[in-house]
């Protein structure tokens, strides 16, 4: 029989929401950098699941399907932004590059990477960790941080870039940070 009653499909999707929405949201946020958009896109992904769940092979894991839907949603999102003049060629370039990378990788590890990243941040030297906190927790921009630390904005920008680079290495190594 084709189709499922709404209640049945909703039950399955609900299970998946509890299992995967945080992971999916983490991935989408890492790609769009906006909370509201992330939430919306995550819901869009699950709406597609609701529409098409009858075609899903339940012998398989749902995550690869969810992430492929997410990739399509991201494409639509960036296309739409560009169409409306709210993203320029650079934004779209970065988004495309990210999507290519994501699709090439066998498995999305955003969730695990964020856990690892947390440990990496904790392992930073106090000065570097303070800089990360000011920018990401207190939401200051580089100019504001520079003013507070009485440094040049360019120097702060380079410093945070180096910290991020170190964190990337840390995450990619899957180990605690190197104490930058």
């Amino acid at each position: 029989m084709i189709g499922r009653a709404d209640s049945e499909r909703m039950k399955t999707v609900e299970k998946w929401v509890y299992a995967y929405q945080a992971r999916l949201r983490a991935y989408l946020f890492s790609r769009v950098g906006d909370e509201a958009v992330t939430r919306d896109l995550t819901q869009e992904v699950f709406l597609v699941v609701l529409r098409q769940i009858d075609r899903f092979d339940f012998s398989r894991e749902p995550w690869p399907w969810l992430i492929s839907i997410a990739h399509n949603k991201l494409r639509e999102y960036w296309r739409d932004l560009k169409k409306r003049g709210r993203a320029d060629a650079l934004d779209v370039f970065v988004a495309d590059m990210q999507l290519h990378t994501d699709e090439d990788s066998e498995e999305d590890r955003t969730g695990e990477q964020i856990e690892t990243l947390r440990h990496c941040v904790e392992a930073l030297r106090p000065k570097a960790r303070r800089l990360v906190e000011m920018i990401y927790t207190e939401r200051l921009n580089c100019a504001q941080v520079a003013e507070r630390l009485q440094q040049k904005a360019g120097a702060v920008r380079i410093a945070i870039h180096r910290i991020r680079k170190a964190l990337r290495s840390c995450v990619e190594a899957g180990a605690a940070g190197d104490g930058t």
Partner: protein
Amino acid sequence: MKDRNVELIAGFVDGILSDTEREELLSAAREDTAVAEELVREVSIHRRLRFMSRESGETDEQAVREILHYLRVGGESREFMSDLKARWARELRKRRLWRRAGFAAAAAIVAAVSVWWAAGQRPGGAVVAVVREVTGQSGLKGAPKVGDEVCEGDRIESGEKGAVILAYAVGARVELGADSVLNAPTARSASRLERGALAASVAKSPASDVSPFVMETPHARVTVVGTRFSLAIDGGGGSSALGSTWLQVDEGTVEFTRLADGRSIAVAAGQFAVAGGKASDYALKAYADGTTWVDGPVVFRDGFEEGMDNWQVVSRSSEKGRTYAPASNADEKRVQIGGDEKVKNALSIDVPRNRKIDIGIRLRNAALPEAYMAEWTTIHNTVGTVVSPVLPGVTEYRNLYTAPGAYSIRVGSAHRMRFECVPAPERDAEDGWHQVSTYRSDGKPNTRILVRLTENTFIIEVRNGRILIDDVVVRKLLPSRKIRDDV
């Protein structure tokens, strides 16, 4: 990597680059893969840091763990789920393309339905429609439920007395009639009626670049943008070489293409057209011409008799606008159906030119009640006229009279109102007679009719005025015990 590129990447992440600097960075990234990769990785780690800090917002490790736990299994998922359910409900509502009251009522009276999906006929693909209504009894293996999705290439069969209503994602509503087979469209092919009949209502999109809705049969292709039409296949068993396709247009204009030779005609509202499997079958152009109201003798050629049972001669008074009824008055007895000496197997209609009566033909049994009822739009206003039964041979209406609801009747051609039936004082209410009176907006009496409802018939006796049956929703006509007695 050049320091300049590092500065640009850092500036991009910080959101402070000017347009010129953004162009500079884009150019650098396009020219140097290393810059591009560095840019992407930097953006990724930046966003993950933001996400991570948003999640925690606290430095206490225990608090972070609790928040993460809550995020994954707790209230946020519940809230998310709640929002998702609301959005899904909205989407389902949007899919209900068929909202007009008339349509709703018409579909509500399709009864004795049995429909099933052909086993093993579901190749999958994108969702193209949703099953909007399945009325009557199904009970067959694989019978669809309301809300089921129809995917590309799905095959839908209705039983001998079945019907199913589909809401297409592209903005069309298709009512598949009894003993019919419909194949859903795919990326490469249109919807295809293989057997039986259907009625379609295609919403007109405000966008100008919307693709037209296309429906095919073994003999013809129908292309529309915003219209209502009925389509029926007459014989042939699904073979393109046998049988024919009959088209009736209720609203708008339909492009009707005969597949045998690719010839197309425009069929307008109130017109009919027929396409046979071979170019020599059924003179498409002639039929199209013949669908206009005529004054004087008209001859339809080319084997008309093959589909004779499906057609009916109707007439209307030229002075009373576009209302028409089956030709049965004494004045219309000159109508002849059959061949003459010169043209065999033809329909000949002969109406004196001095008579202000228009003659036309129409499908005798249209696919669905609404189309059928359009034939009976007017019961002429002679006092005491008895029309019995109003809907001859349409036994599928029986459930209508047992379902709760209210009658909605348009009075004359301009007014529309809802009214309730009450037992008729001068008739035996036990026998099912009810009185219906309608009033104009100024309170003056407009129409008084008596209605008798039994299991299989719906009889109206017009006492004064005239009525036009627009749609029917029964609220309560008889106590259910009486209905059962009637049955």
